[in-house]
């Protein structure tokens, strides 16, 4: 059993957390169970489903494929940091609600984080681009159609 530990200081949603973590602790478990940021969900723990996607220095990554120890000195964003305040949603969240882009909502945090980066890089996407960008995130409820609609609507609102 590995008991090697690391001291880390990581910024999550603008707040600095200092913790001592086991070397083998997955970033997804660290976020969910140590920092109690349980909005990041775990679906497969082998990097396929995308539910655990967060932003690592602005890039979308799968938190189940990283160790907490790798985040020392880095800047993370999770779904909890997406909305500007508790009373309002991010435009992408609003579009997901308006288009019925979620059903059980379990894959949704990973999709939001993936699409946030995509829309920042691609301001006027077409449907094919959205589907390509979304293809690393599995959703078992929606059939994706309303998610695609939501991302296109968010992009349109953003441009306006």
């Amino acid at each position: 059993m590995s008991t090697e530990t690391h001291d880390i200081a990581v910024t999550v949603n603008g707040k600095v957390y200092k913790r001592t973590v086991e070397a083998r602790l997955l970033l997804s478990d660290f976020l969910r169970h140590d920092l109690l940021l349980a909005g990041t969900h775990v679906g497969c723990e082998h990097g396929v489903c995308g539910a655990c996607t967060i932003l690592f220095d602005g890039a979308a990554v799968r938190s189940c494929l990283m160790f907490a120890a790798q985040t020392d000195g880095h800047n993370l964003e999770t779904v909890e940091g997406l909305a500007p305040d508790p009373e309002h949603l991010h435009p992408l969240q609003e579009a997901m609600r308006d288009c019925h882009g979620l059903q059980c909502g379990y894959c949704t945090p990973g999709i939001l984080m993936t699409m946030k980066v995509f829309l920042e890089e691609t301001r006027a996407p077409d449907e094919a681009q959205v589907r390509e960008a979304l293809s690393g995130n599995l959703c078992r409820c929606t059939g994706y159609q309303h998610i695609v609609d939501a991302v296109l609507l968010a992009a349109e609102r953003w441009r306006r």
Partner: protein
Amino acid sequence: MTTRSFGAPVTRNEDARLLSGRALFVDDVELPGMLYAAFLRSNVAHARINSIDVSVAKEREGVVAVYTAEDLGDYWAPGPLLVPPPPIKDVTFNQRTQVPLAKDKVRHVGEPLAVVLAESRYIAEDALSDIALDLEPLPVVVDLEKALAGGSARVHDDVRGNLAALVRQGRGNYAAARARADRVISRRFLYDHGMSSPIETRGIVGSWDDRAGRLTVWDTTQAPVFLRNGLAGMLGLSERQVRVIAPFVGGGFGPKIMLFYPEEVVIPWAAIKLNRPVKWIEDRLEHFFATTHERGQTHDAEIALSADGRILGVKDVFLHDTGAYNPYGLTVPINSQCTLLGPYVIPNYDSTFRAIFTNKPIVTPYRGAGRQHGVFVIERLLDIAARELNIDRAEIRRRNLIPPDAFPYNNEIIYQDFAPLSYDSGNYEPILDRALEMIGYHRFLAEEQPRLRAQGRHVGIGVVCYVEGTGIGPYEGAKVQVQNNGKVSIATGIGTQGQGHFTVFAQVAADQLGVSVRDIDIVTGDTDQFYWGAGTFASRGAVVAGNAVNEAAKVVRQKILKLAAEHFECAEEDLEIIDGKVSVVGVPGQSVKLGELAMKANPMRGAVKPGTEPGLESTQYFGPSGGSTASGVHAMIVEVDPQTFTLEVLKYVVVHDCGTVINPLILSGQIHGGVVQGVGNAFYEQLVFDEEGQLLNASLADYLLPTSLEAPRTEIGHTVTPSPLNPLGVKGAGEAGAIPVGPLFAQAIEDALGLAERKVELNEIPLSPTRLFELASQQT
């Protein structure tokens, strides 16, 4: 309320919580002193257990306990039979249900043998490798036909021929119909249905409050009430001592209604025994073995027709793989047997199935629940008949549709809900017409396909029909209550896995009570909030619980009007309820808020009239006399790459009749999602077992769920034939999208590749590029 919310595309009440990461899922439950469980599972499909030595595991630092079947003592028992066989004459049924931890034998890969409770999941998993296990491998039962043969190994030593069940049902006289038929067509069909694979796996948290003598269980179940009742019984507690909460659940699709999974038996027991909260979360690898599947059936089917394509009769003999145990009874194969009849007049029917035990994980309903298998058989038989009789594929279907004046239509066999298979209502031809129009059927065949073929493109069209028995009993209930703050609270016993219950139930009540959908708070799946109920399955939530909400809201409306009439000293007919207020019609300023009335209905001092019930509240139950039958047609245009055999769906159309629509936005989401699960089943998802009963593709990298690139954009049309069996006129819609996709793919791909001309038929699902290559390359 000036606008009606029932029937409107209202966005969902639950979304803000889900979108901001604030919704509670089972793995989000954190309790002080919590222990974490990991299960040791069999890595072989069939073996005798010689010994399990857990002594080293117990010594590992951080391990609190390790248990095997022996430790469970008298608590150890096979699980309950959830659905007994329906009252069908001469049924053979051999009940063998799963056990909490395997005792003498293991019967499928993944069957649990021991559980470790430790201070972290990491330590618990470390300790699994400390357990010394001596298993003596036994011959493995995998193939259905071999399983039945004499001399086969036995999954259960006392069950000859591995026969779990034998059921024959029918109507009329098939032999006589066959004797006068102009054409008889016989084929073998293979239909393999995969697993539901919700993105959230299963999970359980158990917490025992020793002072209060109460157990609280958070579970990803679709059936919290029955979980509570069963746990109380097994643990020797009263139901009031057990609270089961199904919080937000990350997709269900059927397997989460199965109970009792071994972990559901072991975790609450361990929480009580150790007097500490215990959490178990299934990992994805476990999910492939520890959560139930659907799987294969082999049908030998025959259709007898007149020369003009009328169905005279159908005979079907099929084998059903039920896995190592059969806790869900006959539901899946009975659904196959019944749903084969579809929307067609089939006057003579003779259907026999054998359910077979195999050394594979358990089979229980997964979205469609066996209906797919039956629909595949009849739709493929009609395709072949159309070709042999030189009748258009849509036309042969039209000629056999049940006419609109024939409802209620009795098929004279017994359905999964123990009632005769009777279709309450329907009007099928307009659905077919609408689908043909939306897909451009005739123009495609006459103009586009010849043009595309001339360009060397392989583009084909398909059209298939189906019915879906939905909204079955027994019953659900709902409690509707006006709160002192003027908002409305509704509690119901069913759990929710994404169906939009927080919104559609609010829509049902909103119009009755004159409040906004946003001012209605819904509680589902908490047995302390609502005591009674059956669960979320068989496309029944909106139908059964929705009508219970409607009944309760009607009573609360009467209570509001009665109290307000006393308040204003006027007649109830002079009152209206709008925007959370009761007003006297035509008298501006004469109004009272619902919250004020709620307070009035619960006076703190003074006297009330004898018989007065406090509050603006009502609990009502609804149990339909039978299931309501939804129906639909799917049509598709698909292009096949003749080199790689990959597909591109160019157009996909669903026309659907689920009676009165509560929320078209949520309904379309249900259909889109169902279609894509159907697409996965038809072309991407297959559970591949080897002859040792090992699942060879137990990861999401190998078991291919459709992504946004494989999912077609679906166009939806509706027709509305209200159900006469419930006051709202609704029928279920949860499974409709998924049911007919297999035969649609087979038909359209055959058409695209011109396989019929080469006498190649696609009589199996799932297909795949590889399988299509193999089949299309056959020389006939």
